[in-house]
Every structure is written in C-alpha cells, then in structure tokens.
C-alpha cells in the first residue's frame, strides 16, 4: 500500500501563486483520500477544461482531463460500468454551469453515485478573464439583455447551490478553498454519500477577480452545523433556524440567500442513503 502514502504526482501545477485550486488539491490529497483510505487505483477523477480541471494530472489516481463540460457525463459512464470505483467529476463554473449545464439535472435525476466537485472562481481564468455564469458583475455590452431595470428579479449570477437544491440533488454542500480541513471533510462526506453528491467550492481567482470579491466572500462566510442555529439575520435568537441537513425545505430557504450577501459553508442537504 505504498501508493497510499502520497496521492500527489510529481507534476508541478500550472496555477497562479495564491490560486484556490492549491487548497482544493490539498483537500483531496491530504485530507479526503487519506482519511477515507481508498487505494489510489480505486479512484477515478474526471475533469473538464479550465484551470481547476488540470487537477487530475496532479493526483496519483486514475484520471482523465477530458473536454469542456462533459466530465460529469464521462464520470457517469465510468461509475455505471465499474461501480466499485470511487468516481469524482470535477471542473469549474464554466464547465458545469455554462457548456455542460444541460447534463446536471439528469445526473441528479439518475442519482448516480459520483461526487461532483464544482470549483467556482466566478470567472473564465484559463481564457484570461471573460465572464462566467457565476460572475457577479456584468461586462460592458451585456446590460440591455439582462437589465435589472426591466426585470428586477433577474440576477446575472447563477447560484450553484440554489440550482442544485431546486433539482433536489441528494447531497449538496458548499466549501471554500481557503478552509482546507472543512473542504476536505465535505469531499469525504460527499464520497461516502451513496448517491449523487454536489459540492460547490468557492475559490478566488487571484488574477482576474475584481479586487475585494473573494475577501468579501471570505469575510461574510458562515458555517452551517447540524443542530446549531443558522448564521443568518432571519434566524432570530428567540426563534432560531436550527440547521438540519435532512430538511429539504430548510435547504431551499438557505439556498435563497444571495451568495454575495451571506456565503453559507457546510452541508446544505443530505438525503437518505439509498
């Protein structure tokens, strides 16, 4: 079991210094995989295209840096054909919520036992800074189509967690790349969960994010802990919302909280294991 000693390959990541993807890499290789004790050859990580999708090359397990948007589908084919493997699909916000968005409701519907790790850096980093479906600010020229003046409820920002809750994924969590222990734990729980698990990872793009975006997220973030009051203003001391990951109704309410107002970290929802 020598290979268990280290889940890293010798390859040096291409990421910028300070990129959140390093944190994710550590969460996988130093926390989740060693804690679960899964032999390297029993793990298969499929990624799409983007900065974070380079990750499989840095992890000493079976891996596939595939094509844009299709990681979650390739992963399903692999898991269905060889259920004894631990299969992880990972990619960025562009992968899962733009080009590959059409695949998500179907993997949720099938509840295939794979763990989907969506790295949300709010921007297209690899192509140098274009907007993504989760970018909070509009680029010049897009205003007329999505003007809040005419359609006030519309926000240009697609919320991964909100989407996931509305499609009723059987495990929904959100972590942050700067809290590696917590993120590692979420991935561990996601892998242990029998069914489709969906983990959103908030991560900074040190190169292309507007200054202060991630600092604000980090600063405002609050943790969801089962049995404890939810860190929201609406959760009053006299009538607190007590977090219960088994309650999809509460998960729906939590998912309505705009990410930039109060980023919530933890397990939003976990359905019964099938």
């Amino acid at each position, binding site marked *: 079991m020598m290979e268990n000693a280290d889940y890293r390959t010798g390859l040096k990541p291409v990421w910028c210094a300070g990129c959140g993807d390093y944190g994710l890499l550590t969460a996988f290789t130093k926390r989740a995989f060693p804690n679960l004790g899964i032999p390297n050859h029993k793990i*298969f990580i499929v990624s799409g295209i983007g900065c974070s999708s380079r990750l499989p090359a840095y992890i000493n397990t*079976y891996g596939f840096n*595939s094509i844009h948007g299709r990681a979650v589908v*390739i992963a399903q*084919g692999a898991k269905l054909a060889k259920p004894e493997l631990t299969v992880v699909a990972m990619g960025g916000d562009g992968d899962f919520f733009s080009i590959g968005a059409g695949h998500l409701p179907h993997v949720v519907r099938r509840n295939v036992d794979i763990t989907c790790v969506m790295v949300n850096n709010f921007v297209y980093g690899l192509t140098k800074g274009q907007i993504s479906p989760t970018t909070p600010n509009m680029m010049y020229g897009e205003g007329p189509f999505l003007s809040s003046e005419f359609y006030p409820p519309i926000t240009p920002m697609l919320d991964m967690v909100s989407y996931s809750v509305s499609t009723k994924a059987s495990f929904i969590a959100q972590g942050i790349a700067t809290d590696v222990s917590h993120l590692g734990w979420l991935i561990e729980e996601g892998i242990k969960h029998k069914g489709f698990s969906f983990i959103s990872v908030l991560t900074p793009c040190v190169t292309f994010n507007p200054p202060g975006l991630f600092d604000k997220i980090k600063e405002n973030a609050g943790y969801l802990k089962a049995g404890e009051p939810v860190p929201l203003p609406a959760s009053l001391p006299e009538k607190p919302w007590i977090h219960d990951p088994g309650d999809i109704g509460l998960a729906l309410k939590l998912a309505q909280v705009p990410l930039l107002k109060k980023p919530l970290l933890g397990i939003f929802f976990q359905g019964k294991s099938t």
Partner: protein
Amino acid sequence: MRDSITVGSVGAGGDGVVVMGSLLQKLAAAQGYFSQMPRYYGAQIRGGGSAIKISLDAAHLSLTKDVLDILVCFSWEKYLEFKPELSLGADTIVIYEGDPVDGVSLPKSSFQIDFSRISQETGSARNKNIVALGLLNRLLSFPKAGIMRAVESDAELKLLKSNIAALEAGERAFKELSLPDLSLSPARDKSPKIVLQGNEIMARAAIRAGCRAYFGYPITPAAEIMQEIQGHLSAKKGVYIQAEDEIAAAAMTIGASLVGTKSLTGTSGPGLDLMTECIGLASSAEIPMVVIDVQRGGASTGIPSKSEQSDLNHAIYGGHGDAPRVVMAPYDLEGCYRLVIEGFNIAEGFQVPVLLLSDQWLGQTSTAVSDEFMKKNYQIIERKKPAGQASGDYLRYQMTDDFISPMSVAGDEGAIYQATGLTHKENGRPAFDFKTQQSLHEKRWEKLIPLQQRDELVKVFGNEASTKGIITWGSSALVVLDALKSLGLQDEVKVCVPELIYPLPEMVGRFIKATKRLLVVEMNYSGQLHSYLRSQLQLPRNTKLYARAGGRPFSREELAKPIAKMAR
C-alpha cells in the same frame, strides 16, 4: 409456380397493412421462404397512410421487384401517396376495396372485394388485414398444414389463433374469385428463417462482441437499436442508459470504455453531429468506442424516415484537428452482424473510435434469412493490457513497434495514469511542443496502416478479369448486384463493395488499377464516396458517377441505364 413474388399493400391508419405484411413474412419464414420487406411511412406518429412491399423467395434472398406481382389495396387515396414505391404493371393482380380514384389505372386482373363486410361478418370490422392475409395464403398456395404449424411457432403468429374465422373467411373469398395461378414454389430449404431488421441485428452483434454498455438518445431511424439492446443488456447485467442528448451518450460511452467495458452508442445524422467532439476525444486519447450511424436523408433534419448515404464525409472527416478513426459500412444483414463484431475488434485492438455507417433501408427493412451467420464462430479481440504487474512508471502511451500501447483500466493496480485530450507524452502528461505533437500524430495515424491489408473487408463480385467495374457501398450495393443480374451483365462487369472505407484497403486500389471503365454508384447528392476515392487513388479516365439524393430506394430499372452505358 414461381420462385419469387413481390406483394405490396397500402391502406389508411388502422387498416393494419404493416401487421399484415409482418404476419405474411413470418408465416412464409416459418415455411423456409426468404423475404425482404422495406418500410414506407410518412412523418405521422399514428394514422396517415402506410404501405409495405415484400419479396418472397423460395431459393435465396431477393430484392422487391420494381413492379408488383400482387397489390392488396385498402385505400386508393393512400395508394397515391406511395405510387412510386408500389408500381403496377399489366400483369399485376390487384385486390382492392373501395372505388378507384383518378390517377389509378387498373390492370386487367383487378378484383374488388369488400374486406370490411367480410371482416364484419366474422364478428369484428377490425380484421380486414387478416381476411386479406387468408386470401394471400391461398393465392400463394401456402399449404394449410404449414400455416397452422407456423402459427404455433411464433409469438406474433399465435395472435392469429383468435382470428382464425377472419383468416378462413379470406380463404373462402379467394375461391369466389377466378385468379391466375400465382403459386409460390415450395421453399428449397425448408428450415425456418429468422425475421430481423438491420438495427436489431446490429444490437445482437454488439452483445455477441462482448459489448456490455449502451448509451443512446432516441432518433429516427436508429431507435430500434436501443430498443433491442436494452433487453439483452439487462439479461447480461450490463449498463443501459437513455442519455439526455447525444453528447452525453458519446461521453458516457467513453467513460465506460475507460474502465474496461466494451461500449456502444447508436444514432443517426443529427446525433452524429453532437457526438463529434467525443469522437475526436476518443481518437486523441486512444479510447476504444463504437458508434453506429443509421443514415437518413439530410442535411439537418432532412427526411428522418428515408434512406440516404450522405454521412460518409462526416464519418471520415468530421471534427477539428487531425483525428483519425475507422469507418466501415455493411451492405447487407450478414454484414450488419459481422461488421459490428469486427468494429469492436478494431476499436479494442487499435484503441480507436470506429464508426459504422448503416442506413434507414438496412436498419428498418425486415428481412427473413437463414441465421447461419449468427451461429458462426467469430474471433473476439480484446485490448492490449500491460504485461504482468507493472511498476510505478507505467507508460499509457508508450511508443511501441505497432504504435499500439498497452492500456490499463481504472481499477488496475500498479498501472495508474491520467488520460487527457491534450497533446501528451508517453506517460500521459500534457505537452505543448512540436516534437511531441508530431510524434503523437504519427502514432495515431500509423497504427491504423495495417488495416489497409484487410482485403476480406472488401467484397468483389463478378469476373475479376473484366476491365469494367462498379464501386458502390452500403445498401446501394444490393440493388447494383441485382440490376447487373437482371441485365445479364454479372459476368461482364465486376463490382467492388468496400465494407472498410477508412482507412481504404489496398484491395480497392488493385480493383481500380485493373479497371478501364468505372462507375461509382451511391445515394447522396454530391458523390461523397467518389470524392473520397479521388482523394486516395488515381481513378480511370473513364469514370462516371451515378449519385442522387435519397428519399426513394434505388430500383433495378433506374440503375440499368447508367450500368448499361458503362458496360457498352
């Protein structure tokens, strides 16, 4: 007594024309007759008109004749919709209900018969088709004992048991008409024939090849592949998923293949478009996969329910970059079976995507044939695996003499690797330099070169010494061969049917080199095979192309002209 007879029938929705054709085919097959029944249908889901045409043959499989021997017509209005497919000649026997409409001239042997009334008298107005079947049984001189035995032999035919009254009413109606003799000779070989469509055969062949995962998205005219394979896979505890689209179907096929399961997807033209990015990925990362494309009329949505051979360009060249793949095309039912097995063998053996081009005609024509080809032994080839327990420095894309690298699958101990669609080194790590790019292209292209020696995947018919030749492919080949026979030119003109099209076997080059007058026949507007052959070989100066759009099958009569001109 005749050896072969072509029967046509047409009616409105609810007349049960397709059911009647299918029952007739099965009754005949149980008695040993060969037959072929192409389907003609419109865009309607239910209702509308439908027509069938079936060739029954006592000796061998033959195509339906251009001119019918017998027509059973339930509706002359609907007949007009299918007139080109159901041509009447002076000797055609027509048995019809209702009064003829303008545009129809009845041959001398035409008989009006009130199927509705006769059916009603047997207790139900809905058994018109069974009454007609009873009449046909007598007309063709099927022995009663043979029919009763057949009824017991097949689940669909067993339904006739509750309709015996209607069947017998049809037989009585026959007696009242004075029809010319149209008896069919007893089948030479009385062993029952199986009735299957190309789509079903391809699904069964996949199972035979060891395929244990199918991912597909419903599309006309390929949907029967997924319908057929579902039951087989569930019996074998395999994987079957109706994907959300063809992109997902192809991507799942790749996923299952990467973990070591032989995987298949099937589609038609528009779906092939969506699968293209994954075919490129499989080519680049050297992942075995098999894709069946049941071609239909294009471009775009085109004519979904009719045959055409217009996806060849896409199959060979589709996608960006230089992404080599293997393209094969069966031309008959046996080929549908054999080439799917061969397709898996090549996909696994060469770690390459294999595209099989079928078409609506092959895929959806019900054919009664001897099932010998399904009972034969076929060699099954598995992918090359790393020898013994590999150490930590496994090279997934190792440069070997035959350019094929041992491929471990996820779950194997000691041979971990990370695959990628990026240009990569032998160990799978991304590379961005010219040298690696060049050598990786060499690897992926050169590994396929031995396929050029696969002469057995090129079928040559007729006198090899002849300098007059025809090259054709797919289901068009059947009509070409039949037309030659009816012209009596089968010994004068040789025919080459490449089943393996890309890479092109050298056999095709030798055929062309020994040919002075060449005719290329294919069913697409632009002459895709012709263009492809020109790109690969020096064609004779006297080369002619007969190519036209799909939407109607070729007929002997149609091909007689260009063939006779070439053979002059």
